């Protein structure tokens, strides 16, 4: 299912939480939504889910608006950062509820996943640990066989083994049933591993939206040592968009045609150099740094 967001604005009184966001997500892919704290990710996710009505713009799933559209919503599932279950609900009771609500509910999947994760289906879910509650939420969501899954901090609280199993389940549905996943997270390393594309939000705006393969083909990190530091022409020529200089060692992020970088670098006779792919964390830090959101040290008294 295609997810198309056009010029979406969402405000809380005078505060704009989401500002003029455009986003297109290809069906059968996983999209990572990154951003600083308070960037508007959760608000955006809730707007995607149709919980909030956009002040302007539209959220379309296969060209149909999601807000108050039961047909669309029956194919979309949202797992909140803290999974919700009714008071005193057990996994079986929640399954009964989901069964009545989601038309594509698979009892077979539910039984299979419950057995696999070894959860007691008759235990009060709200009495379980954070990780187990999240497992339960995944069991319910995956059993509903949605076409789009919206996940807010999906792996928070899961141990590494379960985390991997959940990822595998998601990837299976993406591969086999063309499911689209949009996940917000602060764990960039994890997003880097499983996402096909990422976008970065800051102060309600979408700063950046790219396929990860595209990022890796257009961005790289250059570490280079000189006898004598070169002038600005060097940085301009290699297409450096960000640089840090420590003594005679220069580290810069290069954007653009990275295939010719080595040729351009050797012209300046460096003592040594290394061209490295950018991690998602570096992209994040760089993009956010451009907007003045960067790591600064503070020494407390």
């Amino acid at each position, binding site marked *: 299912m295609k997810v198309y967001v056009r010029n979406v604005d969402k405000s809380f009184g005078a505060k704009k939480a989401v500002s003029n966001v455009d986003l297109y997500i290809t069906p059968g892919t996983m999209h990572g939504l990154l951003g600083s704290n308070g960037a508007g990710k959760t608000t955006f996710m*809730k707007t995607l889910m149709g919980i909030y009505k956009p002040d302007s713009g539209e959220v379309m799933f296969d060209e149909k608006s999601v807000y*108050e559209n039961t*047909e669309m*919503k029956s194919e979309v599932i*949202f797992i*909140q950062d803290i999974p919700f279950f009714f008071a005193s609900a057990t996994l079986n009771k929640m399954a009964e509820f989901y069964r009545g*609500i989601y038309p594509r509910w698979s009892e077979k999947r539910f039984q299979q996943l419950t057995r696999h994760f070894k959860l007691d289906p008759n235990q009060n879910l709200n009495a379980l640990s954070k990780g187990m509650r999240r497992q339960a939420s995944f069991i319910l969501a995956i059993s509903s066989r949605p076409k789009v899954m919206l996940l807010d901090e999906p792996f928070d609280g899961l141990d590494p083994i379960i985390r991997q199993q959940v990822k595998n389940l998601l990837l299976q549905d993406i591969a086999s049933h063309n499911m689209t996943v949009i996940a917000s997270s602060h764990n960039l390393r994890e997003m880097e591993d499983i996402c096909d594309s990422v976008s970065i939000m800051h102060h309600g705006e979408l700063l950046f939206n790219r396929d990860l393969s595209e990022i890796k083909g257009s961005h790289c990190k250059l570490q280079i040592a000189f006898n004598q530091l070169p002038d600005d022409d060097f940085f301009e020529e290699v297409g450096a968009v960000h640089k840090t200089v420590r003594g005679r060692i220069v580290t810069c992020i290069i954007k653009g045609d990275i295939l010719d970088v080595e040729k351009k670098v050797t012209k300046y006779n460096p003592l040594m150099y290394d061209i490295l792919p950018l991690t998602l964390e570096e992209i994040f830090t760089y993009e956010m740094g451009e907007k003045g959101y960067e790591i600064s040290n503070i020494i407390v008294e």
Partner: protein
Amino acid sequence: MKYLTSLWNSTLIRHFMGQTFWIAVLYTVISLVTLPLSLWVASSNMGNVENVLGFENNNIVQTLMQVNLFFGIIFAVMLAIFTMNFKNRESISDFIHSLPVKRGSVLSAVYIVGILLITLPVLFISIILMFERYILVFDLSFGEIFFWMINTGIMMIITYILTVFTGFFTNKLFIHLQLIVILFFLPLAMWGAMLTTASMMYDGIAVYSSMRGADLLSPVINNTFPVFAITQNSDEFSLMKSIIWTVVGIVILSISYFLYMKRRNEYVNSNFTYSSVRYVLSVIITILGMLILGSVLGYVLSGNDVVKVISFVLGWLGSYIIVEMLFQSTVKIDIKLKAMIISAISAIIFMGVFYAGWNSYTSYVPVAESVNSVMVYSSDEGSSYTNFENKEIMSDDYLTNDNPEFINDTVEAHKYAAESSVEEVRPGYYRTFEVAYKMNDGSMVYRSFDHYPDSDEALQALQQLDSVQNLRTTDLILNIEEHEWMTNIMLSSFSGETVYINGEDDMNRFINNYKSAFQSSADGRLDLVDLSSQNLFNMEIEYHHTGNQREYIYGNGNLYNPAVIETISEEMRLSEFLALDEAERVYEYEVVNPDVFYNDFKNLPMETFNSRYELTLLEQGEREDIEEEIDAGNLSTDSGRAIMFSNPYYYPADNSNAQSAQYTHFIIGIE
């Protein structure tokens, strides 16, 4: 049809039903106790209930049905609050609104669950009552049970709808509870506070009144929804009001769908959904609190106008803080200067309008020509303590006087009262003057003064109201219209003695004799008739009209009417009836200047009165002679011979004018 089916979501209905099921069970248990069980217990102890509590059969049924509806209203409120609680927490609100269910379906599920959980227990109790009625010693008809079932169900459903509706204005359970109390009782509380405050500043405001429907508070009390709903389970049932409230319920139900469609989930963490509603409520409730606290402070401090103003300012401040604590759900409130200033300015404007409005209200006196008829009640002149209720057994003219001269006199007396309405009232001084005008255009004007001025001119104006024509208007027996409904006539004295006239023939004979002798018995001094009506003697009739309900009417009667004297004398000695034989002192006096004499008797303490007139204190032998004369029925209002005897049941009161001779002593005229 498709639209209706889309509103039905069985999963959500099951969910909401499961969440509130135990509240419904609790209500069912309470209903079992308040109706079937209590009725059975009452039936088992019927003798005791009748004799000890004086309840009648249908009073028990109605009372228990009302008690049941009281709990039913609380249940409906709690049911709605807990069913709607899903919108109060972000996690569940987000979850519910992420489901593939339209808001219309969610709200429909809320209403369906509410209606089911209300109707099922009511139906269950009705079925039990249908069987139980056969074992009760008193009558409980199918009709009564069916009426109770329908009425209780409708009233509870309306309560439920109103509670759901108010839920759309807040996102906190505690504030939801506050809002439903505000919705139900704010108009009553506001109006009550305004009237009480105004009545402390002005005289002439009928907060409570002996005239039925004439007070300013009753209409609001009677139309306050819970009060109205509970009184519907009685003889006071009003089909029109029920229809109006049902229509209101349907309109509110429609509006609640509209509000839900417009509701923005993102404000789930705000106490109020609409900040404008919050600020308007804050201003109104702060003013309400200001009136209450200001009045209490003003009363406790009882100072001059400056103290009163300070009391209201402090009342406003205290009230503002309390309201903010409630609305912010914390005692550590965040004061917003702008909102505070708006609230203060609103209070000042309100008080300006308040003063001007009540000033104009209490000083208004209608023009005599525009008055069609008038009812007057004064504690001093013209009429008696009677309750002025317009019962169906009485003629339309009962207590209503359309004589132009009397209307003129009333307007004149009213002018004196109105002129003094804003003057400082004297603590402990009471002289009641209540008036109800029916205007030519059909409208009514009521005023009730507690402190009629005691200037000579004012009292003279009041005395003008004393006439045979008015005596006729206020006489209970003369104005009975439906004789066949009567079951008893009671003649009672202040001492507690009562003579009963039962049986159709006896009652008719008494009424005919009373009527035929009325004119002659009213020819003498009306002061004596009034004084006996007010302090010594009254009449009461009992009648059955609808169902088994017994109705009573108290009213004026003429002690000097031969029919009264004869009837009492047949049962007991008249001196015993009047408690003359119990009096500590008995005086006699030949009245020379009756106007002054009776006026002094009404207003002077006995000691002063006695020293002014040098009354003859009767010795034992003389007392016995007088008692014999009275027992022989020789009462008279025109002989000029007055007997005054101490009131054996008098207890000193705080009221300064309650010390006057007319309260400490009784007076009768004898031949």
